[in-house]
């Protein structure tokens, strides 16, 4: 059983990440349930997704249960950190250095260098996939992203994902 919170601002692609992970897990025959934010908040407001892997009926993670908090915006981390269990790990899109409990990667910077800051969500996914205990490994996620039929989007996502994986090996 693994539980993840993904957070950020409306428009950063949180729902996209949640959906990719859930579909991969579904294809692997794993039980998975998630919850996402829609409606007015997507106009730049605070957004989070819950993703629960295991025999859960409810899509919401209780306070203090999550194993990972993936934060695309450091100013949203504080709004969601109460979901994390004491030994849980924050994976944050930030230029600050990592510290115990927090691993950080400048996903926006890497995405910008690849041509669009919008790819920051896929960069952080690549990075997170290399972490110990992350429910899916890099290869599995990568081969899912390869299935995208629109060529330009596939190429962009793969480049962003590989850059995230690469950033991890450089640390």
């Amino acid at each position: 059983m693994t539980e993840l919170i993904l957070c950020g601002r409306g428009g950063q692609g949180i729902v996209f990440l949640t959906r990719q992970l859930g579909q991969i897990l579904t294809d692997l025959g794993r039980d998975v349930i998630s919850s996402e934010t829609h409606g007015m908040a997507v106009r730049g407001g605070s957004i989070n997704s819950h993703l629960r892997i295991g025999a859960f009926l409810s899509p919401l993670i209780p306070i203090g249960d999550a194993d990972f908090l993936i934060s695309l915006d450091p100013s949203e981390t504080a709004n969601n950190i109460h979901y994390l269990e004491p030994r849980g790990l924050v994976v944050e899109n930030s230029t600050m250095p990592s510290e115990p409990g927090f691993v950080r990667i400048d996903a926006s910077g890497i995405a910008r260098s690849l041509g669009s800051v919008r790819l920051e969500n896929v960069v952080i996914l690549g990075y997170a996939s290399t972490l110990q205990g992350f429910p899916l490994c890099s290869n599995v996620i990568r081969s899912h992203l390869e299935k995208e039929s629109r060529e330009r989007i596939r190429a962009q996502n793969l480049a962003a994902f590989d850059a995230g994986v690469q950033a991890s090996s450089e640390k």
Partner: protein
Amino acid sequence: MIDKINSLMYERIMTPQKSLPSMFLLGNEAIARGVIESGCTVAAAYPGTPSSEVMESLVKWKKSLGHPIYLEWSVNEKVAFETAYGASLAGSRSMAAMKMVGLNVASDSVLSAAYLGVRGGLVVVVADDPGPHSSQTEQDSRFFAWFAKLPVLDPCNPREARDMALLAFELSELYEVPVILRPCLRVCHARQNVALGTPHPTTDAGLFKKNWQRWAAIPKFRLVLHEELNQKLNKIRLTEPLAQPEKVVGNGKASLAVITSGSVSSHVRDLVETDKDAYPVDVYRVGMPFPANGEAFQDIVDSHKKTLMIEETYPVLELQLKDRRKVVGRLTGDVPDQGELTPEVVHNLVERALGRTPGEKSAPDIKARRPSLCPGCPHRSAFFLIKKVFQKAIYTGDIGCYTLGINMGAVDTCLCMGASIGMAGGVVHSPLDRENATVVATIGDSTFYHAGIPPLINAVHTRAQFVLVIMDNGTTAMTGGQPTPAHVELADGSPGVAVDLEQVVRGCGVEFCEVGDPYDYGAFESLLSDAKDYTCEKRRGVSVVIARRPCVQYARGHTSSDKFVVGDECDRCMTCIRDLECPAITFIKPEKKISINWDVCNSCGFCFQMCPSKAIKKVAEHD
């Protein structure tokens, strides 16, 4: 007999087909899947969070499966229901989907249809929003179903939502009543791996047979029909498996029972099943909270020392118990009367019912980022100029993205769909101080078609002196960009007829109806001034200005790629920060500088035209 049909029906619906893959589906997608699998022939909806994806995914399923279902985004929920109802009388299985406040709009038709009944199975999907996260109210559509005397199913997660969509059609056809399927937001916007079944082709209950005593019943026959409806409900309550309590946790011997339904029942079960020793409780749930078998629930209450009722958002099951002396719930003040029942609230309720003082679990005070109109949103420039031209006016607002005009001080009221126009009529007829008598109403194009036309006719007829700005971005933006009646394409891309907005406005009797581009600072300001002159100075009646510019979210690729910077001429007047409120423009505190963030700027160029000190400059194209 009925039980037998039902057990076969349950088996068919609940047995996943091994040959088909599971998909990770949103609750609303799972509902749409169930609708397609049932052989539904006609489906209509009006978008509204959290219901919008039901019709959107029907469009996807129709295309990917080549299913012949007819789909439409109706002009409003009342029309959506009537479309589905007409199809049902003609013999087709049909569906209408809406959010719970949409059911208020459709209620006149829905309550009458309960008496008349249906021919083809008719399912009304009504999404509730406890919280509320994206709505005006926390109303409980299960309670509404009770009021309307209609059966209502309450799924606990996406998987069950698909199953219940199929069951709802069977029930509706068997008992000849419309059936409401009520998913809460935590079902609609949850995703889960859902096993798929085989889609059935469209159904046909046979040609429409004329019978005015039923389909056009006058009051004398309504009395008979009411009695028949009551008999149907009684039969459903006593015989349908979904109306009976289902024990989901425990051996029936615990001293505490929890009775629950819907999405909150999932939180209850997850909590109790994490540690059965810590939570010695029996959990019962029901799939059909109305009409539920109250006697069977009473037996549970009577055989336990104490019973806790956990349901969202009204005490629907609780009120169906006759003897509530051993019951704790909303009616005893133990369960909160407002707000979402989150896993934390459920945890605290169960702990207290067990006689323990919970180490209260509650979310810390979070500083949620407020939503805001997108960078480059044409509503922003329209609001900026409305405020400039009509200073000190009363701004009646409406439901849509443009409700966010509150951030700019350009929306003073927000009641419900279409109310900006109706309320403006009331404000101008009240004895106001003449200085403050200016009223400007703002409404989006989709909302105008939905509920703005009768109040506009009323305003013209009563010589109401106010200015109406229709914010025409060509789409239903807030809910994901669904088409409006002004589009030439229907929901599934098939050809329709575009209904021209100006013609509708003029058809309401409006003489002053002008169209302008809110990106064009000078021209749009002068258009608003003309409207002000017509309505406020010459007092010739309501004037309508249509602010026409496509939504930035759905016009990507058609926008300019101009980049802007703030030059040294900036005197930090803060107009761009305070009055324009564009998320792309930020004040950098340490340097006391205003900066434009190119990551989010959509290059509308309005700040460039608006800057009082002409400090914002266009730079050469950036590559």
